């Protein structure tokens, strides 16, 4: 091959690299790397409402670790919220929905899946408003109307069971993601395996236990990891429905960061708190990566790139 052709090919490779990987690298840099860098920088300043960074200081970290009396409670609430939503809805209920809707005739199954997808498709403000109406503590609220009809005394969910409320409200949306992933995973199991298990003597639940669950082990791991991370950082529905209240009873960590930074105007302190959230998120995902042996899920790429 002539030297000319080789240089030409090398140039082609470089162009390909820029064309194919360039946009993704740029987006990653702009929206993921830069914010973290900015966050770290701000965390070491005393930036307030004026947006002026006066001096380099460790004061925020000192405050976070020694003087913030809310922090521990917020972390505990976050733990309960994430674990509760995952365990009851995003994984378990998503799985139940997938199992039930795939067992139904396909049209009925599709209908129920569509119903469960509705909250995800509606704007979050509308969804939150519906909840606000449903849990209204007077006899006008949907739940209380039902309770009244059944002869149960009316209830103030928002004040008496705020954590249950935000777990249910988030779970109703979160379950659909798991439902969709698990549904397609269940559909991809060869039908003959179910037939074989049934003729081998397994009843419905045993087929699920011995055939379906082992076959969708990876999707379950994936949803667990993915939803943990997204639950850790999301707070919009909580903010809209309870605004972290009553008092601080539903202020999860991400909402706490938001409140400190944007509602109290303590940008620098908010940045410091956010930094801890990044650390927690990374630690959680690494732990689960190891614990669920997710590495085995990844396959070596089969395409050779030149």
């Amino acid at each position, binding site marked *: 091959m002539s030297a000319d052709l080789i240089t030409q090919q090398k140039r082609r490779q470089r162009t390909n690299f820029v064309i194919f990987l360039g946009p993704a690298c740029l987006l990653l840099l702009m929206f993921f790397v830069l914010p973290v860098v900015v966050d770290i920088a701000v965390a070491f300043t005393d930036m307030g409402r004026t947006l002026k960074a006066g001096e380099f200081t460790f004061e925020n970290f000192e405050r976070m670790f020694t003087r913030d009396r809310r922090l521990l409670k917020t972390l505990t609430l976050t733990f309960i919220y994430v674990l509760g939503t995952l365990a009851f809805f995003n994984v378990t209920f998503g799985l139940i929905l997938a199992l039930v809707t795939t067992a139904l005739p396909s049209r009925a199954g599709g209908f129920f899946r569509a119903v469960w997808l509705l909250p995800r498709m509606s704007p979050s403000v509308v969804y939150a408003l519906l909840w606000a109406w449903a849990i209204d503590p007077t006899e006008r609220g949907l739940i209380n109307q039902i309770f009244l009809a059944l002869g149960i005394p009316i209830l103030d969910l928002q004040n008496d069971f705020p954590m249950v409320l935000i777990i249910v409200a988030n779970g109703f949306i979160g379950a659909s993601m798991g439902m969709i992933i698990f549904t397609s995973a269940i559909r991809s199991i*060869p039908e*003959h*395996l179910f*037939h*074989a*298990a*049934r*003729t*081998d*003597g*397994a*009843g419905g639940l*045993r087929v699920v236990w*011995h*055939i379906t669950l*082992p*076959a969708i*082990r990876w999707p379950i791991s994936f949803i667990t990891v993915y939803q943990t991370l997204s639950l850790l950082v999301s707070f919009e529905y909580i903010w809209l429905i309870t605004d972290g209240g009553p008092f601080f009873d539903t202020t999860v960590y991400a909402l706490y960061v938001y409140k400190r930074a944007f509602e109290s105007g303590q940008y620098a302190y908010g940045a410091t708190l956010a930094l801890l959230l990044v650390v927690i998120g990374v630690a959680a995902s690494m732990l689960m990566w190891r614990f669920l042996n997710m590495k085995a899920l990844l396959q070596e790429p089969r395409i050779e790139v030149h």
Partner: protein
Amino acid sequence: MARVELKQVTKAWGDVVAVEPTDLVIENGEFVAVLGPSGCGKSTTLFMLAGIYAPTSGAILFDGHEMNAVEPKDRNIGIVFQSYALYPHMNVRDNIAFPLKFQKLPKSEAIARAEDVARLVHVDELLDRKPSQLSGGQQQRVALARALVKQPNLLLLDEPLSNLDATLRLTMRTEIKALQKRTGITTILVTHDQLEATTMADRIICMSRGRIEQIGTPEDFYSRPASLFVAKFIGSPPLNLVEGTGREGRFQTGGASLRLGSDQGAPPEGGIVAGLRPEMLTFGPEGIAGEIVAIEPMGRETLYILDTDLGGLRVLESRPDRTHTVGQKVHVSFDAAETVLFDAATETRIAGAWVAV
């Protein structure tokens, strides 16, 4: 062991009828093959016996008990699927022992029985492997072991050999047949391969478009095919079929006329299809005139393709005469007793009728 009976069993998917009303009896300990082209309803019938599909109407009986409402798990059947359907996350031992999990059996005994069956089908060396680490033949044996381990009343085999290579298929054919004779389990084999059916089964059920075309021994199928469909489907190379009309004791076709008769009364009239088996045609000094168009050596035998007064004919010679060449003018003759005639309209065999040169 079980005697299987189907009474007016049908299966339809919406408007599509997969199995027409079917009556059938399979005796205790019998080895039966259900033969037919893909889409003829044979696998559907098998899955109905397994309980995977419910019949649209009719009754399925095992030893006289109606099974329609009985779940697959309670029918005590073993089934081998075309894809083998081994559980990918279990090793061979667990795969074979899986059906015993649901019987009240101590774990040690279940493992012992699984290993016994594994020895029977020669996979006892592979017990700790996963299905993905097995070859097609090994997977097939494991599937067979899993079907046999709970000593089923009925063994159902759905195209079990179709994914194996030719040599292995031959070995497994012999082994499955021997195994069936030894265990005496009523066995139903579904296949589209006529050789598999004729070599393994005591009785063959030939299906086409959801209907049973013929039930009989391999010998019945060879010498007395019940319909044109069976005649075309069985035999390799297939029967030569010559279309013509019968009138006053003559069989008229294109450029030739043959004698037409019947052992049972008057010679048939009207549209007739005559079947001439390639191996019963012989070259001779007289008979139907023709010319050799092609010669296909098949090892021990040779197949000649002829253009004759009756149309294209295949002639199978078991002791080939090396002097025959393409383009040579020849005469072929045959024994009238070995010809089979079909009514062109109903496509069924006309019993007793024959043609002769």
